[in-house]
């Protein structure tokens, strides 16, 4: 067994969930991403707050966790690449996100700032969750197995070393930020 830093268990783990959640919710609100207009305008290329927050989080978190993983201090949690389920789910998700104006996390945070539409969205999410659970056996038999490649990471997929992929990630983030600033300067 590897030594990891994960020393919290039992009640401590549960309290840490609330603590980490508080930090996350606080940051989402301070980042401005609990706002319907800011989220929807991303998809119209009129506001780039969401992409700035997400790409920075991915670059900083990515490099940090890769360094810890290299020292066996953190484990990866890779989700299965089920081509049909992830592709179709993401397409459905995009429709829902633009209609609702929030994603699941920012929606919950938005409720806590008084957004009643986000509250209606949460009620809808409960119905969506129930619908998925009730259709799960059929989905598991017919959708999840289509194009199921397991826990694939980009370094394997692209046949490149880890560091090249992380360098590519940072270059991509920098490129996106440069494009975004150009677009913002035009306004």
């Amino acid at each position, binding site marked *: 067994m590897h030594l990891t830093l994960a020393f919290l268990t039992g009640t401590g783990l549960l309290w840490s969930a609330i603590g980490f959640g508080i930090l996350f919710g606080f940051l989402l609100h301070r980042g401005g991403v609990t706002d319907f207009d800011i989220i929807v305008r991303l998809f119209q290329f009129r506001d780039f707050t969401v992409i700035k927050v997400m790409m920075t989080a991915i670059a900083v978190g990515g490099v940090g966790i890769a360094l810890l993983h290299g020292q066996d201090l953190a484990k990866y949690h890779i989700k299965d690449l089920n081509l049909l389920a992830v592709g179709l789910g993401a397409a*459905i998700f995009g429709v829902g996100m633009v209609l609702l104006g929030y994603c699941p996390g920012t929606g919950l945070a938005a409720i806590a700032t008084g957004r009643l539409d986000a509250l209606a969205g949460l009620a809808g999410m409960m119905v969506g969750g129930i619908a998925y659970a009730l259709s799960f056996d059929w989905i598991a038999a017919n959708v999840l197995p289509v194009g199921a490649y397991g826990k694939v990471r*980009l370094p394997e997929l692209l046949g490149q070393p880890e560091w090249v992929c992380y360098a590519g990630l940072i270059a991509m983030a920098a490129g996106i930020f440069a494009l975004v600033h150009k677009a913002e300067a035009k306004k």
Partner: protein
Amino acid sequence: MKNPRWNPYLVGALIGLLSILTFSIVNKPLGMSTGLAQASGACAMPFLGADKVASNTYWAKTAIPTWDYSTLFLVGTVIGAFLSALLCGAFKFTADSTVWTESFGPSKTKRLIAAFLGGVIILYGARLADGCTSGHGISGCLQLAASGWLFFIVMFASGILTAKLLYGRSTQA
């Protein structure tokens, strides 16, 4: 009221640091929609009965309706956003937003019904994809997971198309 918003790069970097902490200290990635699916199991109990929920494959194995790390993280998120809003005086009951009103008018009923439908659609999609903007979009992408990047790209493309269809008229403003 002064502008309570922080620089988005700073917020992104802090969310990245938060991910590093949760990955290392508690061995958990950031994620939202599993907890919401667990909550939906709890909501289903009065309608479907506890037996039906307990015998459902999905609620029995993947999204067990109980207080655990994932569901308590949701509670924390609500508390955190509430504290932030209170501290800067931004808490306000409202359902208004500029983009929506430009396209669909000021009707609150219309907005709430659309938000409800959006909620149904978004969580179904999130569960089918096995993650949302946080689970796939942040946690997946930062680990260079192929599933995370597939989700991010398809979600973005679908969102652009949907925004054009729904709010196309308001983009001129």
